[in-house]
């Protein structure tokens, strides 16, 4: 069954903006717009390599807040997890994206757009374990 929340038009429009931003960063500075890599390397970057990273990272929440002010908080924000699950999820996302050199943006949007087989493999892997995790939590354990 398809969810009532399915929004293909807004999805495509928002996706196009994300693609535009990634294309812009590559054209302007030759950088891959992978959020986990930009964030992870900002922790260890040398002087001169840190400024653009922080500027991009500050842009993310600022851009979301600006868009929300302009067009409204179109999809809301729902998160009900307890502390344990949030911390476990955050640790796994941080550890896994550093180990695997990328996340949904670096592998999913940027790597795949360049036809990288490595990024395709990574994207298939995290989609598969993400879906398996949700399946286990929602349909095997019975919790949400």
């Amino acid at each position, binding site marked *: *069954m*398809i969810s009532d*929340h*399915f929004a293909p038009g*807004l*999805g*495509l*429009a928002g*996706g*196009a*903006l*994300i*693609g*535009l*931003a990634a294309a812009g960063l590559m054209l302007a*500075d*030759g950088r891959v717009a992978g*959020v986990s890599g930009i964030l*992870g390397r900002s922790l*260890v970057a040398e002087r001169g390599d840190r400024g*653009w*990273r922080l500027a991009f990272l*500050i*842009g*993310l*929440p*600022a*851009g*979301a807040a*600006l*868009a929300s002010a302009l067009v409204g908080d*179109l*999809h809301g924000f*729902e*998160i009900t997890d307890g502390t344990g699950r949030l911390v*476990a*999820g*955050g*640790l*796994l*996302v*941080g*550890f896994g*994206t550093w*180990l*695997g*050199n990328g*996340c*949904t943006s670096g592998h999913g*949007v940027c790597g*795949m*757009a360049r036809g990288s087989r490595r990024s395709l493999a*990574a994207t298939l892997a*995290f989609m*598969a*374990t*993400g*879906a398996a995790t949700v399946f286990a*939590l*929602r349909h095997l354990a019975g919790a949400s």
Partner: protein
Amino acid sequence: MTRELAALACGLVFGAGLLVSGMTNPAKVLGFLDVAGTWDPTLAFVMGGALSVNAAAWALTRRRDRPLYGERFALPEERAIDRRLLAGAALFGIGWGLVGLCPGPALAGLLRGKLPVYLFVAAMLAGMLGAQLYTRRTRR
């Protein structure tokens, strides 16, 4: 300074795209990953929109010798589909499925003033630091 301003502009557009697409709401992401439940295919359209724009742009950008303000295109040199790549991606996917947040949307949610987002981002940074120590010790 131009490089930083360009990066800021790209971050702003990226963050706006995340909000418009709905990917800033963890429940929507979990709705996509829940293929056996009441499925929300929106994320596939976000990915499709982003990929088509970015792939078309890359076809043009790659003809250039260098980026507008940088010295070279900093593309990943790694080619191998190895255990490290797949293990990292698999672990990332589990965390993604637990909460419904990945790095971009987690950071994009920071101005909502929600404690769960701060907790998640703090744990994500700790995970990255842990992985940096781990990979330094094992030399990949």
